């Protein structure tokens, strides 16, 4: 039985977005492995789509998010266009960063996505600063900073979360615990509990199931509403699971045998939502149609990216700096 008050329409919207994120990443992975079109490393968030969908749902376009190297889902859910993202992964003209950043530096300032980051935890105090800027400039924008469990063991976690508390900033920190810091079990490298660290720093902290998109969306709406109203920072710690490896080419053999299969069968957020939608009377065929449409959309995005030209050679000298620009003098 689906839970009481289960909103079928919202469920279908969330399923559609989760399917789009998964299809984007599956398509990118195929483009990397089968065609070598994606040149650098990409870090997939397969299995973690519910976090992106639920946390972005209550945000406005003008709200800001800062993401990580595992940021495709966050970026799509914030409203970026799949073809521009795919072109970026392929390093092509028309990519959201002009082919200069790739997957790990994907950004779309037009939808308030202020950048993925190739350095773990580096976005935490930058995000606190974005919220600091928002507060100085006035208005009721909020900032959401997403990072993984591994980031809790770097200095910016302490410095950035403390900063948000000290200056009372409108920011939500979301720690997305997918169990692994690259190939190392995070629990083996973490003293105490991450959520307790946030509490110790004085932030109102919520712990939630990161694979239950329905419940998480309600939680995220409540928390972000409160941040918008009070201007005070909060912390959301969610448990999820990375069904893929650290990078697309990581077979993740360090996981105990059967763990990923077990999680795929019991914890996958798409699977869980489909079960609940079916219980609420949605036909499997309708859900399959969303899956098919997402795959088609992302195949088209890849086709567009494949057809796009490389960026102009001299763009490597653009947007470095105005003063002393290498376009004027590279040496």
């Amino acid at each position, binding site marked *: 039985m689906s839970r009481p008050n289960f909103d079928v329409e919202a469920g279908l919207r969330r399923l559609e977005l989760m399917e789009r994120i998964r299809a984007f990443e599956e398509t990118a992975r195929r483009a990397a492995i089968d065609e070598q079109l994606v040149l650098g490393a990409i870090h997939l968030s397969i299995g973690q789509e519910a976090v992106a969908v639920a946390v972005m749902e209550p945000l406005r376009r003008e709200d*800001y998010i*800062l993401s990580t190297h595992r940021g495709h889902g966050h970026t799509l859910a914030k409203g970026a266009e799949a073809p521009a993202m795919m072109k970026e992964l392929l390093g092509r003209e028309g*990519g*959201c*960063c*002009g*082919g*200069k*950043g790739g997957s790990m*530096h994907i*950004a*779309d*300032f*037009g939808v308030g996505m*202020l*950048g993925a*980051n*190739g*350095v773990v935890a*580096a976005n*935490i*105090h*930058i*995000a*606190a*600063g*974005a*919220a*600091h*800027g*928002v507060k*100085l*400039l006035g208005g009721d924008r909020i900032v959401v900073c997403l990072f993984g469990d591994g980031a809790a063991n770097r*200095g*910016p976690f*302490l*410095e*950035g979360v*403390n*900063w948000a508390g*000290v*200056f009372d900033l409108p920011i939500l920190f979301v720690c997305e615990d997918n169990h692994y810091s690259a190939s190392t079990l995070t629990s083996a490298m973490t003293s105490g509990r991450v959520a307790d660290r946030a509490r110790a720093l004085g932030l109102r902290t919520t712990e939630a199931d990161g694979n239950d998109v329905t419940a998480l969306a309600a939680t995220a709406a409540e928390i972000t509403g409160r941040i918008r109203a009070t201007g005070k920072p909060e912390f959301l710690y969610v448990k999820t699971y990375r069904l893929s490896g650290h990078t697309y080419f990581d077979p993740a053999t360090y996981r105990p045998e059967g763990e990923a299969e077990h999680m795929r069968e019991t914890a996958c957020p798409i699977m869980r939502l489909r079960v609940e939608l079916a219980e609420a009377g949605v036909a499997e065929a309708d859900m399959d149609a969303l899956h098919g449409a997402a795959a088609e959309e992302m195949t088209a995005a890849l086709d567009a990216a494949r057809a796009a030209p490389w960026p102009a050679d001299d763009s490597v000298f*653009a*947007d*470095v*700096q*105005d*003063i*002393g620009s*290498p376009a004027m*003098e590279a040496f």
Partner: protein
Amino acid sequence: MAAMTYAGAARLAIAEAMRADPTVWCVGEDLGRGGVFKQYDGLVEEFGPERISDAPISEAAIMGAAFGAAMVGTRPIVEMRFADFALCATDELVNQIAKARFMFGGQSRAPMVIRKPMGMWRSSAAQHSQSLESWYAHIPGLVVCCPATPQDNYSMMKAAIACDDPVVYLEHKDIWLDEGEVDTDLAGEFGKARVRREGGDVTIVSWSNTANLCLDAAETLAGEGIDAEVIDLLSLWPWDKAAVLSSVRKTGRLVVAHESVAVAGFGAEVVATVAQTVRLKALPRRLGSPRSLIAYAPNLEEQLKVTPAMISEAARGAVGGED
């Protein structure tokens, strides 16, 4: 024109910029009490604690948070207290601030002034005395500025605040109280050197406080009939190659002097650029600190200093054509 100190000149530039633009703000440790060198004295009274903001002792967060605030439309002035402490915020400066505009395909800017008081000062030993300007000159995306006089600390600070690129702004701690006349109408320009003294016999290139020492050396040399031209680069990126090349074309002789370690210092860049462009009459001379560590005891600290006597001696060698 008004007489003011090196510290006071920058303070005036900041106050004027903050009056003109409400998005300019300062953040760093102890700013609410005027800053560790009193270079923010009186500003919190005028602008309040939100715009002259104290900070936890979290250099990485000061740098990172200021960057975040810059990306959303403010213009932060970041105080690092000592250039040495800015190393705690190296990822933020080098991997984030310097690269964001490029990596994000021009979607963002980081209009920031990053103040890093540098240099040897009152037996401050190895962690409070360094001159690391050449590190930053090596990083694409950054503007690097090292003013040496009250006038230039006023004009260049104004230019740094107005600049849409991140500016690493290195002030020398030993000259905070140096006084000089400041013309507030004089605009600073990155990549435009100041010829501190004209002369036809030898070109002496320097920056930061060593440029002041070069002037002392030039006085001594003048007494001996050697007419030295002293060029203060003011900014290392961009740097005024045209001024240096035009001067050495005239003099045919080059001395470069700086306080930082000579090995891989920016002096090497200046000498290399000249060497591949102009045929000099004498071998170029490069003066910098030996590659050792700055010590506490005054006699040990002295061993590492580039002095006016050393600068004069190098110039005499170049002019004497002993090569």
